């Protein structure tokens, strides 16, 4: 699939509209499109629609070994997938570049702003931490994927529930949500992104550009802020130079939108958990008993994994792979994974995670 090229008459009309301080979709210059947030039954799965732009985000967690330098911190990764929508500008490499740029901005907004308390993801310092991954799939592009993906990521993190873990010496037990209620992540603040588009050498500014405007803009400025008026990331692209006052103005506009959106996200998630009882999943709980530091006996550690296989794993829970413990790397994934009885799609997901693990190493 490829996106059609922009004709001269489209360009003329869009630019003429902007000069008249009007927009093609009857919004004003500083009006964003309406945000629609919808949660699925699985914790951490959310679909966000910004106008016609639609994005699905899914958070998943697994247990990994922390970095040497940060022994008591978990980590968060973001992966954005845009293979479902038409290519931008007909060329494949440009598309890839665009995806990478988006991913970079998102990582800066979410990871580098420390919006999630990474230390709360620690299970056993230096040995085991939770690693959270957010997969974002763009389903429709009507402009401003960045804001939409950013909101989806935050909603997904805020909606996600981490399974409860107990540590008794060397016994580590991961409880299913049926046995013990899963706990939410500790989110310190919401860094929300607002995108501005600039036209005619930065003379005209638009908030939340649609796809037509995005195709014709000279450059963009994305500001990520939280409700305490702290800037978590600022990004400029395209070919333009901006004055200080313009950035200040954008900042002011962005802050207004961010206050609305933060309240909105809080409201939506609390409403969800008020209305819906925490869903009961039938994931088998996994008990892992380590016999001290005796790692030479491989067969023993294999036996010590007790899986209650009498319960059928639900396909919904399957993307929370609880078995991926670091010390089990040498065992092949397909043998030990309790979810290998489910569909092919799940298998591919677990393979993906396996690949990721290899990347980490």
């Amino acid at each position: 699939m490829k996106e059609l090229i922009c004709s001269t008459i489209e360009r003329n009309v869009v630019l003429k509209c902007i000069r008249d301080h009007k927009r093609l979709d009857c919004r004003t210059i500083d009006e964003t499109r309406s945000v629609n947030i919808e949660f699925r039954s699985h914790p951490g799965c959310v679909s966000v629609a910004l106008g016609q732009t639609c994005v699905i985000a899914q958070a998943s967690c697994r247990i990994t070994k922390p970095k040497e330098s940060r022994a008591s911190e978990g980590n968060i990764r973001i992966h954005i997938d845009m293979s479902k929508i038409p290519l931008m500008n007909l060329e494949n490499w440009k598309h890839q570049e665009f995806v990478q740029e988006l991913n970079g901005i998102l990582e800066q907004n979410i990871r580098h702003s420390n919006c999630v308390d990474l230390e709360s993801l620690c299970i056993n310092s230096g040995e085991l931490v939770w690693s959270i991954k957010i997969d974002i799939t763009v389903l429709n592009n009507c402009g401003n994927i960045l804001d939409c993906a950013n909101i989806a990521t935050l909603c997904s993190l805020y909606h996600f529930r981490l399974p409860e873990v107990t540590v008794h010496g060397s016994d580590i037990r991961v409880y299913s949500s049926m046995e013990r209620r899963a706990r939410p992540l500790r989110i310190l603040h919401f860094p929300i992104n607002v995108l501005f588009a600039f036209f005619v050498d930065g003379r005209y500014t638009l908030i939340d550009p649609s796809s037509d405007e995005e195709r014709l803009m000279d450059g963009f400025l994305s500001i990520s802020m939280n409700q305490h008026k702290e800037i978590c990331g600022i990004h400029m692209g395209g070919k333009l130079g901006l004055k200080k006052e313009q950035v200040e103005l954008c900042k002011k506009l962005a802050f207004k939108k961010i206050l609305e959106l933060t309240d909105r996200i809080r409201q939506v998630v609390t409403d969800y958990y008020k209305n819906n009882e925490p869903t009961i999943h039938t994931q088998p709980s996994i008990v892992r008993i380590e016999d001290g530091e005796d790692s030479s006996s491989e067969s023993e550690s294999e036996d010590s994994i007790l899986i209650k296989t009498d319960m059928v794993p639900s396909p919904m829970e399957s993307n929370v792979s609880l078995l991926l413990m670091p010390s089990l790397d040498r065992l092949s994934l397909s043998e030990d994974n309790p979810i290998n009885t489910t569909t092919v799609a799940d298998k591919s997901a677990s393979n993906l995670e396996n690949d990721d693990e290899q990347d980490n190493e």
Partner: protein
Amino acid sequence: MDIERQIDEFVLPGDPIALSTLPSPLDACHSIVLGPGLHYDKDTNAFTSHGCGLVREPSSLIYYVDGHRSAASSLSTDDLILGIVVRRQLESLLVDIGYNELASLSLYDFEGSTKRTKPNVDRGDVIYGRLKIDGECQPQITCVNEDGKADGMGVLHENGYLFSIPIDVANDLIHHDNLLQELGNEIPYEIAIGANGRVWIKATTTRTMIALRKVILERAKNKIDINQLKTLFQQSLVS
């Protein structure tokens, strides 16, 4: 699992369709016409859909599936289409029409163009023309009819606006709907709808164009009543 679908019901690809209720449709005297999205399997003697949408019967013994389709699968010879010029070559233009590949348009296929006087067409211009598809070859466009007259086709004027709508809606607007006439009673405008789902509109002011676009897109989204659309048009004219 044999739930057979009837006329005006929603089907998915692979659904069997009960056209067998008809009075012996495969008799020699009655021949059935299957439109896009329908398939007849000779071995099993059954009709199946390979599209997604509603089964329609516009007149007796003619059937098709009315739903969303890609431009490439629904274009055929003699369709009027709108395209954007991607490249200008020595004697021809390459035009993007939403098909798998770019269509070619000879520069001599404009009204009054000769070897000396070629029309002034540039990259990004919008072309309204007639399509000619010959089997697997590259599609071709002409901007003249049999008499060598333009007949409304050619390069479209600068002061218009181009946008896309779904193909089934475009076909509806061309053939069945009187929405365009109704809107024309309110305000004068020019419109060209291509069979590939692109719409070009030209009106006196930008505001009218925005309003027209909004109404047509609203019509594409959900099939609401004409009177509602007219009130929406009036509202968006004022705003």
